[in-house]
């Protein structure tokens, strides 16, 4: 008996990193999962590595496109019959710069990637969730959804916005059996971190290694987080006893965020 037996989940950005860890943890607890990603090759590789053909489906989808976000929810319903759990995990930012030099495009990208994607997927998923009187929306935010750092204002702004959306939506649907929460992990060395980290570090005036150390030293644990830490909390929130938790911004940051 798993904690998520019979549940159907969508995890955006599920081929790699945090999304992949959450998808695998959900599968281990008995759920069926649709994972999305922009890269079909990486999706196929993820499916091969997970090796659970009956329980997991990959959909090539771009979180920055509304129709793709909606298609992921529709795929869960058409493939597995319903949608119980939505994990809005896809997100990121690029072309970092201090606000004085920041381009419109960089801000727009972060908002599309983190905020619009979460909004589009949540709006589409919550309707069937409300009809069935049960649902879980889990937004993968960040410690940067609670605190700010110089040079990465696009990401900080977008993640703060996701946390605001989380709180409002939780109040809207709480009485109907649907919970909405945000996970706020500290930095994790995922593939994406390795790819985009150097540019973010440069915008902050430090090296990538210094960036990782900087985040680690802010934590009480003096180390960065790991994927499994985030996945375990996602399982709890998606499970039956997780139904008592909503509108929460849960820190998985080794004691970094002050609240």
């Amino acid at each position, binding site marked *: 008996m798993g904690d998520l037996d019979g549940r159907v989940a969508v995890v955006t950005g599920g081929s790699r990193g945090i999304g992949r860890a959450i998808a695998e943890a959900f599968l281990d607890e008995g759920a069926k999962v649709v994972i999305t990603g922009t890269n079909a090759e990486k999706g196929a590789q993820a499916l091969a590595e997970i090796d659970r053909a009956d329980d997991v489906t990959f959909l090539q989808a771009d979180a920055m496109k509304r129709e793709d976000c909606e298609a992921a929810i529709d795929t869960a319903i058409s493939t597995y019959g319903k949608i119980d759990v939505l994990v809005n995990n896809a997100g990121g930012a690029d072309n970092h710069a201090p606000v004085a030099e920041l381009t419109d495009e960089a801000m727009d990208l972060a908002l599309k990637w983190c905020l619009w994607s979460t909004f589009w997927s949540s709006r589409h998923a919550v309707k069937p969730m409300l009809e069935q009187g049960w649902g879980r929306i889990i937004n993968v935010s960040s410690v940067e959804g609670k605190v700010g750092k110089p040079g990465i204002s696009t990401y900080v702004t977008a993640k703060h916005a996701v946390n605001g959306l989380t709180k409002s939506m939780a109040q809207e649907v709480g009485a109907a059996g649907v919970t909405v929460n945000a996970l706020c992990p500290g930095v994790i060395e995922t593939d994406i971190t390795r790819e985009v980290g150097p540019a973010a570090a440069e915008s902050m005036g430090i090296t990538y290694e210094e960036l990782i150390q900087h985040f680690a030293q802010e934590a009480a*644990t003096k180390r960065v987080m790991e994927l499994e830490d985030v996945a375990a909390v996602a399982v709890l929130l998606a499970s039956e*006893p997780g139904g008592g938790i909503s509108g929460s911004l849960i820190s998985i940051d080794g*004691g970094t965020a002050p609240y």
Partner: protein
Amino acid sequence: MGKLEGKVACITGGTRSIGRAMAEAFVAEGGKVVVNGRSEEKGREALAEMDAGDAVAFYAGDVTDQATVEGLIDFTVDHFGALDICCLNSGGVKLTAPVAQMTDEEWQLELDWNLNHVFWGMRKALQHMIPNEAGRILVTSSVEGKLGKPGIPGYAATKHAVNGLVKSAAHEVGTLGITVNSILPGLIETDIVRETGPASAEMMGLGSYEALLDVFAQEAAIKRMNTVEEVAAVAVLLASDAGRNMTGCMFPVDGGTMPY
């Protein structure tokens, strides 16, 4: 394999309600637990109802007495040979009153019950955990650890205080494999709430005990109270290996009541 296989825990206020639910959840995950409570009789009842054989023991005593709290830690180490998880869960209010009418005696009781007991237990537990470079300390705080309600100033003050203690301690031992966290439940209809709720309701001018429960439920996004099982599930997560990187955390189990 349970998530707490072979782990040893002690829980203050463990014979009923939240503490009892934690004890049952820990045992279900393979842990061993010493539960504490004031009443020998309720302790015997709890052990009989839990029916977990050698996996559970009872330690009697009032946590407003320092010797009880420290004795519980020592007893746990003696009895099960280790202390991996220390749950400082006991707490409450005896007489509700607004600040203007609060007595020194009640104020001191709430300080001892909700704050000093947590400090005494945490200090003693850390003395066992630091040499082992492993451990979990869980403090049952409350939504009143972030908010305030009229008529329970001592409860709000002491629950705020334990949250501060938790954050400081988390930073002191964060590199030693020890985590220190608070769990902040919303209102749960426990035995203690049934006992003290009617007086609180009257003092808050709410007319009835049921109205008090409804005030709390309506504050939550989920428009209901929380359950002890919801708190226990979070305790298991924080106590397990998967909880190793969560520390200094104020973990909400309040259905969306607190604004931050």
